[in-house]
């Protein structure tokens, strides 16, 4: 897991964006693993921190667009949680850049692709 990057996506918008991405011919960088959750709202601090602590280089979370969560505000809560963890990490002297969440519409395959690549570049996984 050392040099790898984890993408956690929700089974709604995140999943659709990922499929759109592949159908448009974009491919994930190697060393990227994916993990699906029903809603990004399930992500919590403990899970993210323990994963980072286990040596993953970065976690990228892809959820639905803000106003579009099937569960009303799971994605917004996740966004806030991730902000909180980023702050915790940077306060602790570990760069907060290792974790990031963005929201995507089902048709935003290209944006997802470039977001993942930017993120991979930032945390140094290629």
């Amino acid at each position, binding site marked *: 897991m050392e040099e790898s990057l984890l993408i956690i996506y929700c089974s709604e918008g995140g999943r659709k964006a990922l499929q759109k991405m592949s159908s448009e011919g974009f491919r994930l960088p*190697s060393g990227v*693993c994916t*993990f699906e959750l029903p809603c990004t*709202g*399930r992500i919590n601090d403990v899970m993210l921190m323990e*994963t980072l602590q286990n040596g993953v280089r970065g976690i990228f979370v892809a959820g639905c667009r803000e106003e579009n969560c099937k569960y009303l505000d799971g994605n917004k809560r996740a966004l806030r949680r991730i902000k909180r963890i980023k702050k915790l990490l940077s306060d602790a002297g570990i760069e907060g850049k290792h974790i990031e969440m963005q929201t995507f519409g089902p048709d935003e395959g290209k944006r997802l692709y470039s977001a993942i690549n930017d993120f991979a570049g930032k945390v140094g996984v290629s």
Partner: protein
Amino acid sequence: MNDKKIVAVLCDHGCRNGSKIKYDELKTNLKKSEVIEDFLLVNKACDSGVEFLDAYKGRKILFGGCSLLEERGIYSKIKERLGLKNGEFRSFDVKADLYDLYPDKVNLEELLVCKILSMGTLLYHAEPYEEERIKPAEGILVYGDGITALRTARALAEEDISVEVLETGEQFLSPGLFSQHFGRPDQRGLSSVVSADERRKSERNRVAGFKNVRFLPSDAFLSFETVEDGFVFTFKSGEKRKFGTVVIAPEREEEQSRETGALNLTDLYGKIVCGEPLKGEVVFLLDYAADTSPEVFKDVLLAGKYIKRRFASEVRILMKNAKVSVSGAQELYDECREQGIIFFKYLEDLTLKNNYGDFEIEGTDLYTGDKFLIKEPDILVIPGRSILSPRSKNFAEALELLTISDRYPQPDSLWRLPNETNRPGVFVAYPTGDNSIASLLFSVRARLSTAGIAVNEHIPVVDEDKCVYCLTCVRVCPFKAMTTDSESRVAKVLRTVCQGCGSCAAECPAEAIQLRNLTGESLYQGIRALG
């Protein structure tokens, strides 16, 4: 924890890699893990039948294939043949979730091992369970005594559905729950409803003619409690009634117009219903308070068309992001343009000034680049986020519907779930035309005729020993599915209401909540297995 191990099966027709997969290497790697018992490769699982799995009765099955297998019902066949319960079978779309995501040159075996181990770990930790359905209680309560409420009641009664109408009455529900929450009603807003009173009375007489409609007096109701299959209302007489379905039928929204002088759609609709002349310059300002949903945009087009035709008024529609994506909206839009309704697509620089009800709107049109200035229109309509009347919003809050800061029931998702609110079983009927009543009827009927509401797969389970009864879950659940339970003194989930999103589990400070078949532990391990 159950100790059934996993048999992983992969369809090797693998629309891309086919038999290039190195089976033996894969199998050895997989069998190193303690959760995988065996690994099989099949060719063309979509055609090969499911008998080959007979030897694996009593194991959990993880199946990786393409979407065809789901479509052709292969997965349900497998479940049936092997007698697998929920929580003993899982599938993943190996093409979409794996092959298609990576470039050709990657080490496919490695990725497959990760994927299978990760999914397998989740499956390994899953508890088998029987699907459970809870039937909603029978009664239907319509709250409101305006035309919308009455029409809703009539529409339901005509369908042979028994309805009870809890009339709000001229005055707000007196002592007890509501006034304690919301104080006294403001009398000012009520005067404007009066002109519709005649209409209302005749409609009421008509509705009262139905045998299956019962009217409950406005001050009859004391308190209520939510239960799994509905809402239990306690009436002053001491009677307790359970309703599985509640329809909040708001009449009009008074606050916004009182404050700003601008109308919202509901107000406008009220004026149309009451036959008030809408002459002069009528301006619709869309996307201003919030992006206008496609449904609302269609309503605006309908209203604009009606006003233009009926009163020959000057109708202008200012919009930014509104889309004609609802069926029929495009034709309507074209018709409106033909009739001479003027559309502006404005840029960010739009300003709206309000001098005590005299409005001034200034902005730039996106297409022409021209500046426009609209001074003192006779009627300004701003479809806001809020559609419910203050009374209904109070009621909604009492029913613990999710509300935004100004306490209106979840405006954002109303157009996605046209009538049902975040509380399954609670509907909102709008005074915006027959459309909404028809779809309301549809949903209510569907609700009544189902074999019951299925309990979500990922329902939270509260660990009674760990729960400190802090109520965090009660406060964060977007569906208000978590409640208090004074007997056990731990949080309790209303199983029909929960949608399994996991927000409660994520925020619980005592880690007392685990989602069924998606426990924290299995998630950590599932993620770890990716490594």
